[in-house]
């Protein structure tokens, strides 16, 4: 059986429409009351802030966006079918640091409504057939466990099977320490999956959100044809605090921000969230040889 067959999709059932989020698509941001911009502290009505894609209309700060909200922001209306990939319960080390690791996963699932740190969907993006693979930082820091790795790899395989472009939104603290070496292996698995997308000559565009570090940055996040970073996003391999402690060097201004990486030639563009869909859509259309 083709591995892609293991991926089932939920087609257009009303509760899976992005306007009416189902259990997998519950936005992590509040939808009632008010929210404060983390940078300038200006308060917004939650609905308005969400309508602005969690970008502060006052200072331009780009706030966190959950995976389901990401899919809603990038996909054309009513086109996203979230992919249900059952990855089961994984605990390769029998890890327990006061709270058993499987229990931490259960709590993260309850809190975010997500199955893992990755949520994937088949969708249309500015009219282009795509597979969206979005990470959620609220799910155990967007860490790359074996479940998350499997979901990403399946998304790559679906892109190849259906000749769709791959669009990944990456935001992660890095490895999932509780899975130890199995977490490290996900860098290999995800890279092997990206290699299939590359071999199929399909466009792969990655969008790096705040924050994006460790094994995610050091693998699929930057193995794309085009790397786009969101304004102000902190991106790197080792975290700034770790570097400061290890080397006692003073970090330069704006170290590891999207703008810093653009200046150092590490990303192709810094694109405001409101322009992501257009920018990515245009690129895919051009790579696909369409007007």
């Amino acid at each position, binding site marked *: 059986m083709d591995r892609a067959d293991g991926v089932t999709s939920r087609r257009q059932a009303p509760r899976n429409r992005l306007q009416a989020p189902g259990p997998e698509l519950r936005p992590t941001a509040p939808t009632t009351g008010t929210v404060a911009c983390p940078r300038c502290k200006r308060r917004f009505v939650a609905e308005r802030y969400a309508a602005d894609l969690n970008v502060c209309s006052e200072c331009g700060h780009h706030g966190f966006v959950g995976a389901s909200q990401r899919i809603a922001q990038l996909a054309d209306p009513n086109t996203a079918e979230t992919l249900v990939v059952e990855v089961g319960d994984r605990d390769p080390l029998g890890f327990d640091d006061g709270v058993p690791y499987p229990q931490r996963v259960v709590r993260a699932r309850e809190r975010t409504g997500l199955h893992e740190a990755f949520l994937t969907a088949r969708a249309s993006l500015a009219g282009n057939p795509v597979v969206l693979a979005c990470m959620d930082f609220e799910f155990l820091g967007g860490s790359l466990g074996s479940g998350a790795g499997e979901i990403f790899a399946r998304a790559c395989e679906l892109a190849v099977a259906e000749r769709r472009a791959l669009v990944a939104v990456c935001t992660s603290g890095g490895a999932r*320490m509780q899975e130890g*070496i199995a977490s490290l292996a996900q860098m290999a698995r995800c890279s092997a999956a990206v*290699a*299939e997308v590359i071999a199929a000559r399909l466009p792969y565009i990655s969008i790096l959100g705040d924050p994006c570090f460790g*094994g995610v940055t050091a693998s699929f996040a930057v*193995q794309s044809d085009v790397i786009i970073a969101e304004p102000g996003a902190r991106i790197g*391999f080792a975290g700034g605090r770790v570097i400061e402690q290890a*080397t006692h060097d003073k970090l330069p201004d704006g170290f590891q921000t999207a703008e810093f990486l653009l200046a150092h030639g590490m990303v192709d563009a810094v694109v405001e969230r409101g322009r992501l869909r257009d920018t990515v859509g245009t690129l895919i259309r051009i790579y696909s040889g369409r007007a």
Partner: protein
Amino acid sequence: MSTTIETTERERIAFAAVELARHPERPRALQVISAITGGWTELRGDRLFGDDRAVVGGPARLGSRSVMVIGQEKGTDPMTRALHNFGMPHPEGYRKAVRLMRQAEKFSMPVLCLVDTPAAHAGIGAEERGQAWAIADALLCMLGLRTPTVSVVLSEGGSGGALALALADRVLALENAVYTVAPPETCAAILYRDAGQRARAAAALRPGVETAHRIGLVDELIPEPPPGAHAHAPLVIAAIRGAVIRNLDELCEIPIDELVAQRQRRYREAGG
């Protein structure tokens, strides 16, 4: 009371294993290269920015074949340890490795990688010059390289910094080596917000290479006579040579298309 003592004992044993892997007299990459190859000619520089001495490499003869040997070198005394940055590569090290792997592909030479690093270097320059980008590129390079590859984890395989040279057709590891997602100190800092709890992290993370073997990142363990490779360097180096040649003999029989497909399938499943 007794559980606390047992836990402490378990942590002590776990960290002792990490310390054994870090024993300063274990065989180092340059030592292995000079012992098992002939005519090794070191090639330096990434052709982009500089030369990273944490990664050494160049063509050599191994048995009846020409091979490209790439190793992470930790150094053996205070001066060489500083010179080789304690085996912690900068982006230039990975880019040099990729350059040499491409060259090996061109001349149909198998690649031998000697892995020995606590982690990739964490520093301002490394970040400015794209540490993550260099590692990600090395991973893709190893996955698609159209020539047989063997990696040997000598002592410490830490983080993506080790993985970048370890996505080979065959991965061998010395029995007492460790292979971890990050050094126990880093894991402790992340998990318990206290690098001092490294023994606790070591116990929780099962850093021994048998864990890596179980999840499919390592194929074969090379035995070390007690108390370990530090006391029997010539024997262990001879065992490495034998194991590498035996694996290369097998790999060179496999048509290259099949070999690359096998390798990609294998890493698609590892840690699943």
